[in-house]
């Protein structure tokens, strides 16, 4: 078990290193000089000024030196300094992180709370009219783009119920009510596809498990159906849902980029979006690496939890 955990962790770190390399190389390969961009407004900029700024930002160094100094900083948690705000990137990310995490977790919670019962119902009433309709609803849930769903919710909640969101963002520790009122619609829109995916996955895995021999044995011994479904079949069919949630977490993280910009939520999504537009390389680099790290970490966690729950996969 410990060997497995170490192997998986090392592999995660390797992928993280590869992400960093990939992003770094792409950023440096793309034309568009940040120094000229920053000085573009001022007419009559001399070459000396350009050089001075480049030197200040460390852009006059060879690419390999830049990469090395970045990596050695990143290991200690220093992701460099923003070109725009001159603040440490790590600080900017840490400041924006809570909103994104809250949004992501709310979306996941929504998807599990609704997706699990729907999946179970679908599996129990296999091939009934209810099951068919729920399946169609799930496919629809996967197909509807979350940004359109969010726009629809804003529009029709306000037209039909006269309800509109608070305009100014508040952190949960400042004003929990306002915070949740702002987060509700984006979390709902973001969680819908994960919810649909969870219910689909649970339906098919539960169908598979309920047809297996051990469930037949449990049933033949006279166990009540409730116990069969929730305890025996449920435990075994929830495993693939874990893996699915880990993978869905990536989609949810990505989805925050769009939803944060629609709802003006000050999270990492809006940070990376504005930084990309301003070519604030260090912030973009830091954000992509951070997103990758969170995604890798979550899936590592899923794999480890999985190995604890299901001892069969440890040595594979």
């Amino acid at each position: 078990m410990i060997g497995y955990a170490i192997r998986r962790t090392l592999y995660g770190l390797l992928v993280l290193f590869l992400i960093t390399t990939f992003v770094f190389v792409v950023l440096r390969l793309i034309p568009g000089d940040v120094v000229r961009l920053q000085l573009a407004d001022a007419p009559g900029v001399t070459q000396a000024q350009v050089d001075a700024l480049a030197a200040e930002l460390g852009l006059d160094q060879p690419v390999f030196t830049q990469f090395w100094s970045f990596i050695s900083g990143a290991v200690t948690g220093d992701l460099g300094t923003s070109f725009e705000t001159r603040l440490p990137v790590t600080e900017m990310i840490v400041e924006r992180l809570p909103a994104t995490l809250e949004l992501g977790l709310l979306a996941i919670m929504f998807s599990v709370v609704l997706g699990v019962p729907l999946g179970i119902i679908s599996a129990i009433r296999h091939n009934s009219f209810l099951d068919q309709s729920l399946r169609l609803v799930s496919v629809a849930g996967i197909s509807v783009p979350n940004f359109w769903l969010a726009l629809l919710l804003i529009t029709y909640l306000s037209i039909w119920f006269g309800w509109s969101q608070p305009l100014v963002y508040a952190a949960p520790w400042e004003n929990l009510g306002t915070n949740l009122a702002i987060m509700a619609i984006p979390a709902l829109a973001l969680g819908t596809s994960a919810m649909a995916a969870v219910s689909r996955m649970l339906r098919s895995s539960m169908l598979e498990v309920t047809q297996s021999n051990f469930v037949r044995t449990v049933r033949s011994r006279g166990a009540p159906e409730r116990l069969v479904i929730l305890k025996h079949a449920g435990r075994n069919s929830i495993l693939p849902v874990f893996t699915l949630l880990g993978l869905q977490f990536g989609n949810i993280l990505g989805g925050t980029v769009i939803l944060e910009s629609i709802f003006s939520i000050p999270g990492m999504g809006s940070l990376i979006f504005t930084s990309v537009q301003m070519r604030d390389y260090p912030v973009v680099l830091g954000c992509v690496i951070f997103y990758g790290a969170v995604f890798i970490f979550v899936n590592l966690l899923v794999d480890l939890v999985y190995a604890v729950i299901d001892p069969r996969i440890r040595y594979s």
Partner: protein
Amino acid sequence: MSIVQQSDADQARDAVSTDGSTPPPVARPPRRRALLRFAKQQPFGLAALILITCFVVMAALCPWLAPYDPLEQHRGSIMLPPSPEHLMGTDDLGRDVLSRTLYGARTSLLVAVFTMMLGGVVGILLGTVSGYFGGSWVDTIIQRVMDTLMAIPSIVLLLFVAALLGPSIRNTVIALSLLVVPQFNRVTRGEMLRIREETFVEAARAIGCSPWRILTRYGLPNLLAPLFVLGSLVFAGMMIAESALSFLGIGTPPPTPSWGRMLSEGSASLEIAPWIAFYPGLALSVSVLAFNLLGDAMRDFLDPKQHR
């Protein structure tokens, strides 16, 4: 919504031989009969197929179907609600929403088709090579690169690449392909690993076929079924991804009509003119739904378990 259903790959791989055996390469029934069987067994799949046909016809014939020029601005008719003259109303520049939605289908379809062609071909090639040489250093290198691409959340990767390349349809296709390649690579590699252990491949090797001949003659034909399933599901994902990029303003550049951009333009006037954002979003959702349904139906149809 999700840009790329990360589980698509698994689902597609399950499409063929969930019980671990390959369907023997027997003579197949004529294609027409297979299509009939598909229509009978998968009513949703048939409906999806019809929807997709309508969608393609819409995209192909939009210059004749559209009542107005999608780019023509009418200062006198701004934000008109749906009416017999403008079935879906007009937007904030007085452009006809119906015409723009029809042309948007063309943009969406073109981007997705080119993405599938570029990303699909590269992904299948890499996956085939990787699977055939499974376990060797070639395989290892390819898989590490793919893992890296898959470990970055898809929109973040798209945003990063598309924004750096600049907004244009070509660059959107390049950025989206980066999402498609790992998906096709994964499924192709998995199938190849399985196929290369088959007796008929062993036989081919024994009579001295070159690796190239084995790949093209025995590998690829056996890959087609799961790849069709994957292709349909990925196609749906790419349509959403294209509009997500356009929504963020880094995909299809204006004034080309694109569903994503129409959505973001409409989001400014949701409460006074909801139709501007409603109809393009509906068109997008329905077409994505059709491709997802088709993919599901094909998977069920090809799944040997379903025939029992």
